[in-house]
């Protein structure tokens, strides 16, 4: 096991800057997930930790060693790739033992290490098969087995579940998490799927445009997003964001959109009339108001999407649209008018210009 420290790590491809000075400290045994949209630099950063991409600037430390100029094999890491990257002409056992073969391990050592990894991942009956004879989930387990066999200080995962179907993805998610709990090895995992990030990580690093937007525990990111990007990226369905300004209503601060829609603000928000802000509220913090109170907003239902566990209702209020995730089991229909109550203490407020969180 080892800590990982990234200090002002930069990467450029020619004149094109991909990473603009990324600093992250990862604790020993921690499961950290790098998440962000396509092209944000998360996979490049992971490949730089692995030694598969050169570093333009900054330092990467694994344990106490600066590994900037070390070859991948000398970094004591193992990596699981998106497309599994299993050697097609080798059996499962040969795939798993390949790194040990290159390291000059004896036959007994190889057999012992492969047997241990196969037992952990339930691969023992498949050891003599070729990759083409395995299902997607089994291939993914072999890829993890290949990593385990090396007994590395750090595991790196590059979108390992992207090629699996939805059901298998959920199952493998659980398997990777329990693998981490069992091995207690430092893991860095890249995904663009924020559900994967939320369910698996000890800490999440949200990246955008080659920069770190926020680092924190999953629920911290969910409850206190540092800026508009994180607010919109974390959570599914995503947070409702409406631009407007802080207004004053009977001495109590209110939010007012350009279309005149008034929404309540948390008590912690200081009065600052005229300040341009973005109002954020998660769909699950919007609920039908029955009976409707005088401060409740009334809108028209535009779209209804039942998901089973909840019903997602898209409403039009003035010129703005607001999504609610209701669990009231009532039947809503498009075109109906509905009063909404917003859990005001769960409202997020961002500065419109900087995008940073105000409250």
């Amino acid at each position, binding site marked *: 096991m080892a800590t990982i420290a990234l200090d002002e790590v930069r990467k450029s491809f020619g004149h094109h800057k991909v990473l603009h000075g990324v600093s992250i400290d990862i604790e020993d045994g921690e499961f950290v997930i790098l998440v962000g949209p396509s092209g944000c630099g998360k996979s490049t950063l992971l490949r730089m930790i692995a*030694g598969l991409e050169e570093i333009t600037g900054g330092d990467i430390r694994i344990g106490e060693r600066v590994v900037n100029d070390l070859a*991948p*094999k000398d970094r004591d*890491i193992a990596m699981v790739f*998106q497309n599994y*990257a299993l*050697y097609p002409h080798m059996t499962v056992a040969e795939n798993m033992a*390949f*790194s040990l073969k290159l390291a000059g391990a004896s036959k007994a050592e190889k057999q012992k290490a492969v047997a241990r990894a196969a037992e952990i991942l339930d691969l023992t009956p498949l050891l003599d098969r070729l990759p083409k004879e395995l299902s997607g989930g089994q291939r993914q387990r072999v890829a993890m087995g290949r990593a385990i066999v090396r007994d590395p200080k750090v595991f790196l995962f590059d979108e390992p579940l992207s090629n699996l179907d939805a059901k298998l993805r959920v199952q493998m998610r659980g398997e990777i998490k329990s693998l981490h709990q069992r091995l207690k090895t430092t893991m860095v995992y890249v995904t663009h799927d924020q559900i994967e990030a939320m369910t698996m990580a000890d800490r999440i690093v949200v990246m955008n445009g080659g920069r770190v937007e926020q680092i924190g525990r999953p629920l911290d990111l969910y409850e206190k997003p540092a800026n508009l990007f994180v607010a919109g990226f974390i959570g599914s369905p995503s947070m409702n964001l409406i631009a407007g300004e802080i207004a004053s209503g009977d001495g109590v601060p209110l939010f007012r959109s350009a279309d005149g829609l008034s929404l309540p603000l948390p008590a912690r928000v200081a009065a600052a009339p005229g300040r341009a802000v973005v109002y954020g509220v998660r769909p699950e913090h919007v609920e039908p108001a029955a009976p409707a109170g005088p401060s409740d907003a009334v809108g028209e239902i535009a779209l209804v999407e039942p998901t089973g566990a909840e019903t997602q209702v898209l409403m039009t209020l003035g010129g703005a649209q607001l999504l609610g995730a209701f669990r009231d089991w009532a039947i809503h229909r498009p075109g109906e008018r509905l009063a909404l109550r917003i859990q005001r203490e769960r409202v997020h407020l961002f500065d419109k210009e900087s995008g940073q969180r105000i409250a």
Partner: protein
Amino acid sequence: MTDLAATAPAADPSYAESRRRPSFVAALYIYGSLFVVAAIVLVPLLTTALGGFKTLGDLRVNPFGLPSEWQWSNYTDILFSVRYWQMLMNSFIIAGLTTLLTLAVAAMAAFSLAHVRFFGAGFLMNYFLLGLMFPIATAILPLFIRIRDLGLLDSYLGVVLPQVAFGLGMAILLFRNFFRNVPKELFDAALVDGSGYIRFFWYITLPLSRPILATVAIVAFVNSWNNYIMPLIMLNSQAKYPWPLGIMVYQGEYSTDWQLVLAFITLTILPTIIVFFAAQKHIVAGLTAGAVKG
């Protein structure tokens, strides 16, 4: 839920029908063309092989038909002669060495051109490809002088080295295109597993490249097997002659006995036909590898 399979073209009965059965006119055209091409290839081969079973008189009267009397002795006499086996052995040594050297040099050069970024890689590739544009005959005089200067005249290597050099362009092109299609993730995985370029080439690339290795091997082998001009220029001793020169000598000795010459030719081209049929699956796979994304 939408059933995607139901909307796929293959599930459409008329589509499947049209793929299975071409119209009568189309079938006539396809089979007619195939018949003509097959005839162009097979008629000379069969005529040669059958001619070897005839008497000289029979050959003159009936050059294309079946022998009126099968003369097995034409073939058995050749098969029991030392000269035939010596020429065959010479051909095998020259073609075998040419094949091995072409595979080794071309595979390594193509691997570097496919995976290693270095200054002048594009220029070097084009330089190799230039070789494709010149037939051996155009360079025969300078080649002769260089081989003479190296002291390799009248040796197997004097034939093998120029053949390898002229075979490299096509071999490198085929190898490079194949190697470029080996997924990059495999290289990354091998790097993490502790491999470098050489181990990746040996343990991963070569085992995955059997189809293209077979293709290049067969092309190199057949080209060398059938090469006439290079042994003619470089070899003096009849004891080192491969079969194309052997036929020339044999023909000189038996110029009136065409049936024996035809039997000799049939026996000398037989090994390449056997090699080709044994490996034709690999040849097709190798030549089309990388043509479509898998």
